[in-house]
């Protein structure tokens, strides 16, 4: 129900989902290389005559799905971790706090390289794994902060007095109350992952095959002098996708 409410907000992604089935990013028409926008190709064409609308629509969809899935995984790992850390208190709480600090400040690019250096051609599954390594931290930190406020609330004390402990306390009583904040974070984490995925494929660490926002941008930068529309399309698609995902998070809240 709530997810349905987020769909119109994520207008860019919805539009891409409507367009993608009808346009194929693998159909090349070399005669149309770098042609300017026209009625048949609303965004124009890129290298080897790939239809930019098709390329961007597919890339946005794949990027957004990757980002949303990873953000959900982050939520599923981080939220219970943070909530239980705050409920257990003591050393576990301090260690979780510090771990979040370290993971959030650490350059994700370096981490991605360290892991991706072991594979010849990283696929989206590899990228998703790399992002999931750090995606839990903001959720854990938020759940920790929220639970610190909630743990002294009277309804939690009441639940404790009734003998509710451990996982049921965290999942049934604490986390539902932290959900609105976590939903917003879900959006901004997914938005950040959209940008990171684009950045990694821009520098050449992305999935082979070229259907990603970063490689579209890379293509645009290399032909910046004679076909700036390729770069503009890719750059705007990255902003629009990440803004759209963030807005969807707000709508779910």
């Amino acid at each position: 129900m709530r997810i349905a409410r987020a769909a119109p907000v994520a207008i860019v992604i919805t539009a891409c989902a409507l367009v993608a089935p009808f346009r194929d990013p693998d159909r090349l028409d070399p005669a149309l290389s770098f042609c300017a926008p026209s009625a048949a190709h609303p965004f124009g064409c890129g290298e080897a005559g790939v239809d930019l609308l098709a390329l961007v629509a597919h890339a946005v969809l794949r990027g957004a799905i990757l980002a949303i899935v990873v953000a959900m995984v982050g939520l599923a790992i981080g939220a219970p971790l943070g909530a239980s850390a705050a409920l257990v208190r003591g050393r576990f709480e301090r260690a979780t706090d510090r771990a979040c600090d370290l993971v959030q400040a650490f350059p994700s690019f370096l981490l991605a390289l360290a892991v991706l250096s072991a594979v010849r051609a990283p696929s989206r599954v590899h990228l998703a794994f790399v992002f999931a390594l750090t995606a839990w931290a903001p959720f854990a930190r938020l759940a920790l902060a929220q639970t610190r406020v909630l743990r002294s609330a009277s309804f939690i004390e009441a639940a404790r007095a009734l003998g509710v402990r451990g996982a049921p306390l965290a999942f049934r009583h604490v986390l539902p109350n932290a959900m609105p904040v976590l939903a917003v974070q879900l959006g901004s984490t997914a938005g950040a992952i959209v940008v990171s995925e684009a950045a990694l494929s821009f520098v050449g660490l992305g999935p082979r095959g070229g259907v990603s926002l970063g490689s579209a941008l890379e293509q645009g930068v290399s032909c910046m002098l004679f076909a700036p529309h390729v770069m503009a399309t890719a750059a705007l698609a990255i902003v629009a996708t990440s803004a759209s995902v963030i807005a969807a998070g707000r709508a779910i809240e």
Partner: protein
Amino acid sequence: MRAARAVFARTLEALGVTLAMATLVFFALRLLPGDPARLLLGDQASAEQVAQLRAELGLDAPLLLQYTRFLRGLFTLDLGRSLRHPAASAASLVARAVVPTSELAAASVALATVLGVAFAVLAAGPFLGTRRAWVERAMIAIASTPLLSFAPIVTYALAVRLRVAPLPGDPDAGLAGLAFAAGLLALPLAAHVARVGRAALEDVARAQFLAAARARGASRARTWIVHALPASLGPILAVVASQLGALLGGAVVLERLFERPGLGTLILEAYAARDLPVLEAAIVAAGALFVVVQAIAAALHATIDPRVRA
């Protein structure tokens, strides 16, 4: 005594993070499926060629021995020779690449701090009146636009259309190229600094010592710059430190965009060529650089703000 213990704990943590990073790279390359020698030589290589390269890289030794050798190499800064340029050692290539990246990062941190603080004072102080809201809106817009999107567009506008900035890949760009790249890299950081700085300044603005300074006859500019600003430097430093990781990622993107030499370019080239010794050395160096700069920021923060020393 307490300060010494804090420095010691920080150093230990920094060493730990660097070591963890190095270990992760080491084991990722050796334990994950895909033999590095096989990756390097391609599928057509004969078994002898692969075996020879494995021996050359020391990959035929037991894992624990390889790891000890790797750790010893880290401490003696001898991580082997580059596979792509056999004449150069991995350490020397990294040392050469660290310079331009550090220049870029240092220039953009300096620029971002100056810009961010200026904007924070404008947004929080009484200098702009009701137009302060515009500064605030501009900062939010900049902070939420990814560098990856606006850097190419700004480059196109300034370098290709207006021709006021050097073109990407221009080898004679020199100082202008550095200034342009640093300016781009500084923008998001400046927006973060400005937002945090504004909040901190507004906090400080309610403090009594400002009213006291005003009562003693200090001018409005003097109260803000001499009295309020130093008191809010702590949070500003903290936000710079927390953005260092993002800064490093941004530097890699910009090095790629402008084809500048640097740590990012070296890492990407080593990755593309499967130049393992250089790749390992460069990733560890980048991680160590990050950790050291962060430790320095934390130490500075503690020196400026006595409340942080706990």
